[in-house]
C-alpha cells in the first residue's frame, strides 16, 4: 500500500518541486524545479533519496503535513522552527515522524524557501519527465491546499548516508555575478556602470518567475520593441520601467525585453533565499 502525506496547513505557497523539466523550452515549457537546487539535493541526500527526487518547496510560512505511515523527513533550506505533534524537533537533520503525527515546518526565521524532503520522495505523476509545479504555465501538481493527499514513493531500505550536514545561511547581501547578455548593447554606458555600481534591493514582488529588483532605472540607447527571443535561466531582463528582473526557474521561455546580462545558475540558489529588501550587488564575473 502506498504511503501518503495529508496537507494539514498549506502555507502561503507550497509546491512540489524536483530537478525540473528539461528539453521542452522550444514548446513554451519552462524548466521549473526547486529554486534552491543545492537545498533540494542536500535534503534528498539526508533522507536517502536520489538527488533529484521530488520534495515540497514552501514560501515564508512553511506548511504542516500528516503521514499515514511512519516516515523519515528533513526540513532544510530556509531555517524555521520544526515540530512533531507540537513538540520541537530538529531543523536540517532527519526526523522520524510517526504515522498520524503532524510535522509542522513553521515560518522562516531567515531566507524565503524551506524544503521538506520525505524518504521515498513525493510520488505524484510526472508530467514531461518532472513532478515539478510550474506556476507560469500550470503544468504539474497545483499549489498545495489543505486536505490534499500526496502519494509517497518507496523509501530506500538502507539508513540515510548522512545525518548532519552544513546548510548555507540565507544571504544578508545577495551577490550576483554577471556575464554579458545578448542585448547589453541596447543600454547606455551609464546604465552598464550603474548596474554594477549601484545597490539594488530585492522587491517584494519577486516570485518563482523572477527576482524583481528596486533601484536606479537602466536607460537604453535603443528604443522600440525587441522581437521575441529565447530566454535563459538567470537572464537579467530589463522591462520598460528600467528595473532589472533576474529570471528564475518558472521564467517564460521566450520574451520581448532586452537581456543586459546573465547570472550563472550556481548563484541563483542564494537569489531564491534573498528576502524582500535584501541588498543586491551585481558584479562583473
Amino acid at each position, binding site marked *: 500500500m502506498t504511503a501518503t502525506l495529508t496537507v494539514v496547513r498549506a502555507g502561503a505557497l507550497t509546491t512540489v518541486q524536483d530537478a525540473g523539466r*528539461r*528539453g*521542452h*523550452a*522550444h*514548446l*513554451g*515549457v519552462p524548466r521549473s524545479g526547486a529554486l534552491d537546487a543545492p537545498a533540494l539535493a542536500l535534503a534528498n541526500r539526508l533522507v536517502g533519496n536520489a538527488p533529484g527526487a521530488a520534495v515540497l518547496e514552501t514560501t515564508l510560512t512553511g506548511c504542516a503535513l500528516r503521514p499515514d505511515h511512519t516516515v523519515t523527513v528533513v526540513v532544510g533550506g530556509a531555517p524555521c522552527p520544526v515540530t512533531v505533534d507540537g513538540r520541537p524537533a530538529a531543523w536540517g537533520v532527519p526526523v522520524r515522524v510517526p504515522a498520524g503525527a503532524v510535522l509542522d515546518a513553521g515560518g522562516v526565521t531567515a531566507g524565503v524557501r524551506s524544503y521538506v524532503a520525505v524518504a521515498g520522495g513525493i510520488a505524484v505523476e510526472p*508530467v*514531461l519527465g518532472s513532478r515539478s509545479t510550474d506556476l507560469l*504555465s*500550470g*503544468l504539474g501538481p497545483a499549489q498545495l491546499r489543505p486536505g490534499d493527499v500526496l502519494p509517497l514513493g518507496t523509501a530506500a531500505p538502507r539508513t540515510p548516508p548522512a545525518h548532519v550536514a552544513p546548510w548555507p545561511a540565507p544571504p544578508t547581501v545577495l551577490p550576483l555575478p554577471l*556575464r*554579458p*547578455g*545578448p*542585448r547589453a548593447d541596447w543600454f547606455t554606458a551609464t546604465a552598464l556602470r550603474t548596474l554594477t555600481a549601484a545597490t539594488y534591493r530585492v522587491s517584494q514582488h519577486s516570485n518563482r518567475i523572477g527576482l524583481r529588483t528596486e533601484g536606479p532605472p537602466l536607460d537604453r540607447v535603443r528604443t522600440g520593441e525587441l*522581437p*521575441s*527571443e*529565447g*530566454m*535563459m*535561466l*538567470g*537572464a537579467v531582463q530589463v522591462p520598460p520601467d528600467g528595473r532589472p528582473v533576474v529570471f528564475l526557474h518558472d521564467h*517564460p*521561455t*521566450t*520574451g520581448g525585453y532586452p*537581456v543586459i546580462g*546573465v*547570472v*550563472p*545558475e550556481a548563484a541563483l540558489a542564494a537569489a531564491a533565499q534573498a528576502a524582500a529588501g535584501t541588498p543586491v550587488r551585481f558584479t562583473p564575473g
Partner: protein
Amino acid sequence: MTAGRPLRVRPAGRHALLVELPDAERTGAFHAELLRRRAAGTLPPVEEIVPGARTVLLDGVPHPEELARRIAGWEVPARATDEGEAVEIPVRYDGPDLAEVAALWQVGVDEVGVRHSAYTYRVAFCGFAPGFGYLTGLPAELHVPRHDTPRTRVPAGALGLAGPYSAVYPRATPGGWRLIGTMPDPAPLWDLTRDEPALLTPGTRVRFVAEGGAP
C-alpha cells in the same frame, strides 16, 4: 550562409549562445539546420534549441565559444517552401474583433476568413504558454496591431492576429491579440497524453480550414 554577415552570435552567459539572423526565413532555415545536425549526431550536446522571431537560443551548451566558431563556418541551405504535409486547423471565422480587422484590411467582414485561410503558415516559434505557436505567413499588408489594453480572458481555441503573427490560444489566458475566429476543439493543440504534446512545433506548416458558412 549567403553573402554579407547574415549570422551573428551573441553572448548569453556561461552555457548559452544566442544566434541572430536577419529575418524570419533565415531563422527558420538555421533552426532546421540545427535539428538536421542534431538528428545526424553531428551537433555537440545542446540541452535546449529555442527559436525566436529572428534568433535561435542554444542553451545547456558545455563550450559555447567552440560551438560559436563551428557555427560561423556552416553552410545553411534555404528552406524548401513546400516540404511535408501541413497540419490543418479547422476554424470558424466568428471572433469578436472580426469587424475591426475587416476595417483595417478594408474588406467586408465575410472576406476576412476567406483571406486568412488562403495562406499557408509556419510555426516560427513557441512561447507565452505551452503549445502556443507564433505562425508567420500573413503578408505584410495584412498585419494588424494588438489591442492597447489586453483582454483579461481570451478563451481556449481563440484565433488571433498580432503584427506578423497568427495564433490559436491552447488555453484560456489574458491576451491582447485581435480575435477573428475559433477552433471548435482546441484540445489537440496541447495534449500531454501524446509523445509530442504540442500540435504546433517550431517549423511545422499550418493551413486553416474554414468550417461552416459565414457568420
